[in-house]
């Protein structure tokens, strides 16, 4: 009852021995996530959190059959971590770090293109299928297994959306943070497509925010779907004024300054229900008349 990850997903942790990693990996394991391996160069052959540690992703995959990874490596090492994940042909990698240089992301996107690997993030809380697997840093105790898919660019608003589904008496099939960076591995349309294919997702909550045209691209994809599941949308950042800027290139690339209202309009036109306040999501969910979790 999920997309991308479930209780069978075999997870390896890139950078498992760090303080942050240890803290979150332990929580994920306690949650039931099947963590099968860790990778920390130079620490191969040891055990950490009772999990075998390898020097490379390739080795870890060969020995344990891992098919997904969570990276807890610092921003400047993300590029080489993704390279390893792609070369080992992992299905999924989740990158938590923020502050990955944009040029590195350009190279990372080129690596991912045509590869077997889907990257979630960077700068994301990760992905969680309630009751089954937690890949990332979600506060796991707020989640309820259910049939609402959540996809969001903002971390904290992901948590808000989860609470809103709970409030409506519903639960979540899978919750995904796309990441709050300028360039990220996975887009709204990718996740919307997966949620539409998932027989255990009845409706979707989509949370956008100012910057870029990610929401517009998601809306455009949704508009052309034959059988559309209900999408409740919200876009954050309306109260934020445009700061002073330098030059015009930014405006040219997006065809003028894109406001939060532009994004809301694009989503509404595509057939999504867009709410003004994130705390209105539960009302709209309740209106769908879905079976309670």
């Amino acid at each position, binding site marked *: 009852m999920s997309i991308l990850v479930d209780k069978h997903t075999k997870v390896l942790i890139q950078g498992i021995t760090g303080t942050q990693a240890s803290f979150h990996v332990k929580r994920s394991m306690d949650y039931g996530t099947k963590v099968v391996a860790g990778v920390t160069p130079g620490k191969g052959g040891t055990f950490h959190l009772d999990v075998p540690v390898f020097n490379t992703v390739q080795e870890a995959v060969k020995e344990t059959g891992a098919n997904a990874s969570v990276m807890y490596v*610092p921003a400047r090492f993300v590029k080489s971590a993704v390279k390893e994940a792609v070369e080992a042909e992992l299905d999924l990698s989740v990158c938590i770090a923020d502050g990955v240089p*944009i040029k590195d992301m*350009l190279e990372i996107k080129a690596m991912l293109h045509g590869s077997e690997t889907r990257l979630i993030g960077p700068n994301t809380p990760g992905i969680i299928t309630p009751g089954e697997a937690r890949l990332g*840093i979600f506060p796991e105790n707020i989640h309820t297994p259910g049939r609402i898919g959540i996809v969001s660019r903002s971390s904290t608003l992901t948590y808000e959306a989860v609470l809103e589904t709970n409030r409506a008496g519903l639960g979540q099939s899978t919750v995904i943070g796309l990441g709050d960076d*300028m360039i990220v591995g996975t887009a709204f349309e990718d996740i919307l497509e997966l949620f539409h294919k998932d027989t255990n997702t009845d409706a979707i909550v989509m949370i956008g925010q100012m910057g870029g045209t990610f929401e517009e691209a998601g809306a455009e994809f949704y508009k052309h779907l034959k059988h559309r599941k209900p999408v409740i949308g919200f876009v954050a950042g309306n109260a934020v004024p445009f700061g*002073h800027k*330098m030059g015009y290139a930014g405006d040219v690339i997006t065809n003028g300054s894109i406001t939060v209202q532009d994004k809301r309009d694009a989503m509404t036109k595509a057939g999504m229900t867009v709410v003004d306040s994130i705390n209105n999501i539960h009302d709209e969910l309740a209106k769908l008349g879905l079976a309670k979790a």
Partner: protein
Amino acid sequence: MNVHEYQAKKIISQYGIKIPKGQVAYTPLEAKNIARKISYRGPWMLKAQIQSGARNKGKFIEKSAGRKGGIREVKHLSDVYVEADKMLGATLVTPQTGPKGKLVSRIYVEEFSIVKKIFYTGLVIDRMNAAITLLIADIKNREISEMAAHSPELILRLNLDLLTGASQEQIHQVLDYLELGEKSVQSLEQFINGLHQAFVDCDATMLEVNPAGVNAKGDIIALDAKLSIDDNALFRHKDFLPLQDEYETEDRELKANKNGFQYSSFDGSIGCIVNGDGIALAAMDLIREKGEGTACFLNVKGGVDKDKIASGIKIIMTNPRVEGILINVLGGFLRCNLLAEGIVAAASEVGLNVPLVVRFEGTNKDEAKEILLHSKLPLIIADSMEDSVDKLLAAMEAAD
């Protein structure tokens, strides 16, 4: 991080881009001397060095600066001094600065370039396609801002290959679009691929030449330059750090001031939160002694409002240079438990991606520790100032 026009021009000139002769001046006398040095005859251009577009359309707040904008053409040497004197120390407001404007503390004195045609060039990250995009606009008598808003379809956009830049075919596309003759091919190629290489090498997020000019020989000259560098990549460009103009960039300081805190930034990697000047200096000394440097410190003084403290802490947590946070507080008036609540609120809002060591002493210290322990945040608690620095350095090393 943005750099000034004169700095950006110097950088791109190292990539074979032609720029007019010029030099930066901080005083009217310097301006006059530079003008004489670069050309024995006018006119000269005096250009206010603030990080904003539309400087020529800007207006100075001070009447003494005269009615003209931030870019002035001066014909006589004696007027170079007069005009520079008017502009320096005055505040320029442009459509891009916001109403407060920006203080002009330096001007760029440049030789006047005679060109037959001008056009707009920008390199920017296309975040949707994850590519570097070249934007070229034949602006003729229009403004690029108007073209961007009303007729963006007239602007040429080409995605460049990250490794090789523009292809021969793309160069010819630009040549045809701008209606330039064959004699400009070589210069145009050098111009576009020089800019592309500079963009890649500098980890730029935006590089704009607005305008570029074409002279009688068909050569392309960068008449202006704007460059923004990715803050997240500054760790591999330590040489750029001195180019930073604190007046232009330190909005963290302004945010801190609003809450009655004091914020100062340096060039190290540790962010400190303290509650007094003495403890700040002591912590910085200790960090230096142990071989690290301070990125910034925030003095929350006797701040008692939990939300204010949280916003102050966020200022530190979101500083891209900070690789570890040290909170060192001797609570007197400041109640440690409020600071603890502030830390928890800030960390859960912006996330905690670097090691954080807390050392509390004084009022409500035990309650504060209790709050931090309950928060389940990955904090490290230390017993003394020295202990806190040691623990932080160890945690930062482990995180690397």
